């Protein structure tokens, strides 16, 4: 029994799949459009004619025959839709399904009516709109009764579902494919997640039992460390998690690390390893070297201040060279002490230099 139910379910899903390919605009729907509103009677007649011819054509439709069924069963969702079923057939989905189910049921043993009802029930599922459409389409009274019976079983559930899917007008009995797909999409989602969502079986990561080889308080001291080897391991580890920089700051971090940018805080003498003892002060403040000999005012003072400014701005000389310059002037002027006094350019008085003015050596 179970097998047959499964079989039926599979076949009915095939039916639905083949119905998917059928055209979308159903007859009553086209009468809804305002352009046809004026001559309602004639269009209805036309539609009826069309319906009849289509009913005939569907009877010949090979896509619903047994052979095709089997093909579909192996591939439940055909990738490339069949061109054949894409042809225009104006018939609403309910009628199509009822008709197809009848065909299938006829080929089955036992009670064809019951099989048909079961089939239809499976196809309909809980979609209220489709149910109505099928009820309308299924002419047989017994079939209706059977379907009703089946319906009662699931009535509560159906009611709950219909509350959710009652966005559209439920009174419509014509269900086109697009309506069906749209109303069932949520259902499909649930089904998908049901099919896919495997209930996780809890696995505790730390739930195992220790192998009992190592003892936490044991002596482990004999390891040989290979220095270069460990460096290589560390390098590869770092490299594996290095990604292209994602913004300018990351780019600047890379540049800084490679020594291409100034490090923060900015140090003008960064990496000038050959003159480590020279500080900014030694380069810029040279007036100290005047204090012990230079007149407080006058042309010599003026000249020497200019020398100091010039030297302090010179970045080609290092601090020692600047000091040498200052000392050279000192000795020069001291040597000319008498002459300077004579011409009245000031008096040079040598005093002992104060300790903080001593040149660092």
């Amino acid at each position, binding site marked *: 029994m179970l097998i047959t139910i499964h079989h039926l379910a599979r076949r009915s899903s095939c039916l639905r799949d083949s119905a998917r390919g059928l055209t979308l605009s159903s007859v009553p729907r086209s009468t809804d459009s305002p352009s046809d509103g004026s001559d309602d009677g004639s269009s209805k007649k036309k539609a009826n004619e069309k319906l009849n011819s289509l009913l005939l054509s569907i009877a010949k439709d090979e896509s619903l025959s047994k052979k095709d069924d089997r093909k579909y069963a192996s591939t439940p969702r055909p990738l490339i839709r069949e061109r054949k079923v894409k042809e225009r057939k104006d018939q609403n989905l309910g009628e199509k399904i009822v008709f197809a189910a009848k065909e299938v049921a006829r080929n089955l043993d036992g009670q064809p009516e019951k099989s048909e009802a079961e089939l239809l029930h499976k196809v309909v599922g809980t979609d209220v709109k489709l149910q109505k459409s099928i009820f309308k389409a299924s002419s047989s009274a017994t079939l209706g009764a059977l379907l009703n019976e089946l319906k009662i079983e699931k009535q509560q559930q159906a009611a709950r579902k219909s509350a959710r899917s009652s966005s559209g007008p439920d009174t419509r009995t014509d269900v086109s494919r697009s309506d069906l797909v749209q109303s069932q999409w949520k259902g499909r989602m649930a089904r998908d997640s049901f099919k896919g969502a*495997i209930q996780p079986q809890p696995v505790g990561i730390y739930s195992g039992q220790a192998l009992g080889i190592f003892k936490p308080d*044991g002596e482990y001291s004999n390891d040989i460390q290979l220095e270069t080897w460990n460096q290589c391991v560390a*390098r590869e580890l770092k490299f594996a998690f290095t990604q292209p920089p994602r913004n300018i700051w990351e780019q*600047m971090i890379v540049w800084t690390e490679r020594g291409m940018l100034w490090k923060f805080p900015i140090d003008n003498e960064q990496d000038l390893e050959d003159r480590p003892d020279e500080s900014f002060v030694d380069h810029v403040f040279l007036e100290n070297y005047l204090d012990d000999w230079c007149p407080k005012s006058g042309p010599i003072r003026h000249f020497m201040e200019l020398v100091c400014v010039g030297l302090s701005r010179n970045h080609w000389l290092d601090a020692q060279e600047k000091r040498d310059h200052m000392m050279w002037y000192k000795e020069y002027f001291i040597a000319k002490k008498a002459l300077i006094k004579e011409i009245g350019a000031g008096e040079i008085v040598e005093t002992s230099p104060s300790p903080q003015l001593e040149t660092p050596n």
Partner: protein
Amino acid sequence: MNSNFRLLLPAVQSSKAKVPIIRAFPKCAYSSDTGDIKIPKRIPRGPTDILKALSSCVGVDPTAAHYKFHDDPYLMPYSNPNKRAYALSQEAGRKAALWHKVADPMIEAYVPTQAFTDESTVNEDVLASLISKQQVTDVMTVYGILKKRGNDVSVELKQKILELTCFYNSTDPLSEEWVEENWFRHGKPTGRVSQFSKKTWKDGGFAEKLFDEIIETGGNVDKASCALITGMIIHGQLDEAWKRFEECKQKGVKMNTDVYNALISKATSLRDSHDMAWQFIMQTLTEMKHYGLRPNLTTLNNVLQSLEMMASNRSSRPNALNTIAEFQALGIKPSLASFAHLIRIFQKDKRQMLGLILSTIEELEANSEALMTPRARDDNQFFVRAMESINHCGDRVLADRLDSLLHHAKNYSLIGNSHSESVYYRNYFLLVLGTEEIDDFMDFYGKYVPTLYIPEISIMQEVIKSVEVQMGWKHIPKLWGDIILFEHLRAETISYLLSVAVQAIMDDSDHSKAMGDVAWSVWEKIESGYLKQLSWTGEMLGDVLTLLVAAQELAKAHIVMDKIDRHQNSITGEPLPHSFERYIQACLEVANVDAALRCVRHCDARGRLETEQLLSKITNSGLTFDGPQQRVIGEIQRKF
């Protein structure tokens, strides 16, 4: 003090008006019981700390291309091959440029690399600096030069060279400078313990000769043997390594943890059956304990890696959990790599695997900081494997949790390389596609595409399929635009898209205009001749015709019909009947009998069944025909 007090007054008075102010004061939070506040004169910071702080303020902008493509906005790449080509060529440019700048102080990164020849002045210092920079072949050259000149190299330095050459198998690793190359590299990097490694070890090469030299000159036998044997194992020379390992044990040479770790990772190659391999692992661990060697995280990961290779074995799962418990007792926490191995070990049982991933994610969420710091090379495998498995189980909620974990803080570096990034997003996209409605999916799509991820052709097909099933017709123009951008112009993709567009106009004529534009764009793209590998099929042309007719672009439809007729011998497949039917209908509406007749004549020439029906459509249209037209009609009618 006085002024502070005055400042507090209004607040205190308003809240506790009745309480004397003096009593209220000691209770208040401003008392000095926290001790003296010392403001440091200066907080010492590293050279990149400020930059890191600034960088952490920059979020991910899903609308912008990756930073590396910002240099030239005009050339911003949109397809996977372009992204790869641009990034790599940028780096190749850097490689080619000889940065020869005069700078004081000298900037080492700008100095061209030195080529060593017999004339070069070399000494031990040069050698040592080359070793620290992992320039393996240069080290070997310089060592050769020094030996030739008779200069003596100290035994310690020789040991270092041995370790270096064993680790990298005497080949140069990729320079750390070439981040892009590393990012786009598919194969396994050098120096990596690979799973199914071929033998790459250079037999009788530099390393083995150096080893002999070290032994002769009285170096440390333990250290030299450890380096050599480990190198041999990780580069696939198992037989020789095993022989030497046994010898060393007999002679009483001490082995270190690295040797045992390497052996464990090759358990399945060293032993035939799963049971024997597991026994071998247990023996090896016992031996480690016997010699007083402390196992480390690599030991744990290697055991799990070996178990992963025996994942088909039923007992691998309990064994893996027991191993983790063993190491947990030793205070060794598993890393992301361990979890990545566990996922593969549990792959057979989906329910258990999902449970495992769930508890792993919970664990990671709880101890994000500690566990997310990379500690092992394979740590970058976790996210891609987890997403893959979650997709197979179809658990959307878990996927979202995993994704938010990946985008948290600095975790994104755990994605691995460009390849694993693609695999990760492919799986995530498929899962979202299967669980979201198409509109919501397209929102999601807009967030990741094209900056983070460019969908592969197969994913694009899936998206189109989803559009078809869920009738999300309005997304077709966007998808077509993306197909062009991503260079996914393949006949099957385009023809599928066109057939979906035809369904769109059949379902809802509101879309006719947009679909007509798409169809014409497809036409222009293919007709441009720019895409050599792409050729029309009859179905595609028929769909284009249908779409243009529906969009009331009859002039353009005539051009397409002309193509169908002219090239009927070179085009494979036939347009669908309804394409012609609609075309003729449209022609008759504007009384263009010639065009309609041409179409019928084409059908006749191709021997199509519906010719008669189409012809009767023309004759029943009530239009009047001139002489030549009557003749044509008569000619065709005679055939029936």
